[in-house]
């Protein structure tokens, strides 16, 4: 297990390094740079050049990337030159909001999805199975920003059940959860259907396995067979998918945070990319990718913990 864990961690660090280096290249090839935003359209070319040199933007790309990693290695995320504050401060004040949003979405959609999937498999071709199938595909097909917009219009504007903007009062847990409800509903909805489909398929496969027949042949109660013997195996692929799916949820979170005007990594990335605020873009990207890779890593380790075969195979 230890060797397996170390291997996964090494792989995760490699992924972060490659992804960030590529993103850096993509970012600086975007048209426009910080000087256009900061100095305005009427700045002289000399002023621009001096400013670019000052920021190190006149170096070749690979040097800039090396410099970026050098700074990261010394524990410095850089400075937000629009607002003159450390990038770390901006990123780490935004991160908890995004984490709450993503985990809120994962938790409710995974619990509901697993329940629906197991129930559908157990009651195959029942009307609940059919309804779940149709809704699953429907939820999957609805882009999360559309769901976000319409749920905002319906539940906040028309019905006035939920607040429209913000993340709630600091320190007031209930108020925070109240503000979290709609955004996490909006980005988790597609996952309910997805998880339900995966769990249903895995469950049907598992129910055909010999060890399920053995459990039945020993007269174990139906509920034990389905929800203990079969579901334990059948949720494994869903756990794996959920870990990787955090990446998808992060990009959905960008839209949800914009639509609901929530603070968070998503809106931070959006604002900083529009403002060509390179240090903040890279800082928040690094944290977002690190977060994603960590979640995938945790999913792998949870899988290994749930599936004893995984551990010794490593």
């Amino acid at each position, binding site marked *: 297990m230890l060797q397996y864990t170390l291997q996964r961690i090494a792989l995760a660090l490699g992924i972060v390094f490659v992804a960030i280096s590529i993103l850096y290249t993509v970012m600086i090839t975007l048209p426009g740079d910080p000087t256009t935003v900061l100095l305005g359209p009427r700045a002289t070319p000399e002023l621009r050049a001096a400013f670019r040199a000052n920021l190190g933007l006149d170096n070749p790309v690979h040097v800039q990337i090396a410099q970026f990693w050098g700074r990261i290695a010394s524990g410095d995320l850089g400075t937000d030159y629009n607002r003159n504050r450390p990038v770390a401060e901006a990123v780490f004040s935004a991160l908890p909001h995004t984490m709450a949003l993503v985990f809120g979405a994962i938790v409710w959609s995974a619990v509901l999805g697993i329940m629906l999937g197991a129930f559908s498999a157990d009651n195959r071709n029942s009307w609940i199975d059919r309804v779940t199938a149709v809704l699953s595909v429907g939820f999957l097909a609805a882009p999360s920003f559309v769901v976000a917009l319409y749920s905002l219009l319906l539940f906040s504007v028309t019905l006035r059940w939920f607040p429209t903007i913000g993340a709630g009062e600091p320190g007031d847990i209930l108020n925070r959860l109240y503000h979290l409800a709609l955004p996490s509903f909006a980005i988790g909805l597609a996952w309910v259907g997805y998880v339900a489909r995966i769990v249903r398929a895995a469950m049907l496969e598992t129910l055909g*396995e*010999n*060890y399920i*027949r*053995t*459990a*039945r*042949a*020993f*007269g*174990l*109660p*139906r509920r*034990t067979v389905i929800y*203990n*013997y079969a579901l*334990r*195996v059948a949720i494994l692929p869903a756990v794996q998918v959920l870990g990787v799916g955090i990446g998808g949820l992060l990009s959905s979170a960008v839209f949800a945070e914009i639509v609901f005007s929530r603070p968070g990594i998503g809106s931070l990335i959006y604002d900083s990319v529009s403002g060509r605020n390179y240090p903040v873009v890279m800082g928040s990207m690094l944290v977002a990718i690190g977060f994603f890779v960590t979640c995938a890593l945790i999913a792998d380790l949870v899988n290994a913990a*749930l*599936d*004893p*075969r995984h551990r*010794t195979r490593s």
Partner: protein
Amino acid sequence: MTDTLSVERLSVHYDTREGVLRALREVSLAVPAGQIVGVVGESGCGKSTLINALLQLLPENARIADGAIRLNGEDLVGASSRRLRDLRGREISVVFQDPMTSLNPVLSIGRQMRDIQYRDPVSRAEKNRRSAAMLARVGIPDPVAKLDVYAHELSGGMRQRVAIAMAALMKPKVLIADEPTTALDATLEVQIIELLQDLQREIGCSILFISHHLGVIAELCHRVVVMYAGEAVEEGPVEEVFLRPAHPYTARLIECDPGRLKQKVAQLPSIAGSLPDLTNPPTGCIFRARCDHATAACAQKPPRVELDNGHWAACHHAREVQI
């Protein structure tokens, strides 16, 4: 002598895309109390369907078209699922063919063995103690530690011992063994057979032993049922059936047993022809197309010809074949 388990004119049909597949047709057999009865037949003869029918665990597209399965006189066909669950594991239990896949991969051995005892109102520690005692009984070293082990951490032979321990745990009246030694090598095979014999004597259960291995059946069983293409064609005491077979299929099967070969041959003996199409089985004798003894009479369904010592064969020419 009372029969613990008896199957009476059992027919099982599968609904398939090609039509109704008649996997078992009027199969009758009896397992007397305290005896080991072998069922022998080649692949596709309906052995697996028979086991699934006995446990009432047939797949969804299968149905019992006719017949009865009596366990201590109680008909299992049409019994409520609650009653069946009650009987399974306690009165009738099973050791499946492939120990690699018949144990749950994500639950420890101890957990699975505790679950089998779910009906007993005893403490977890007591259940573990009983499980360990049964593991020790089937010859597993360090049984207490093995309770925390998962199936994939055990060797094939050990896994099959665990499967036998699970099946014997509730001291069933009837134990079905579905080719329990097929996945094992020859030395383990002998050990497993001796173990089953010992357990049978200790628990006093009956065993229905399914195999395609004639040597194993001869070694272990008191009686044997020969199956071909979904029918029981011959039944009787093992020595009777193997030494004086009365059905041409049984006779050919014994001739084809590689264990009988005394010297090297270029080609192993086989029975010419192939199994009939069970979606459209031929009328009359099912073995007719492949049989050396076939005559015009075989176009009629063969009678059950009773011979000595409870030995019978479903063949028009049974008495001629036997000589």
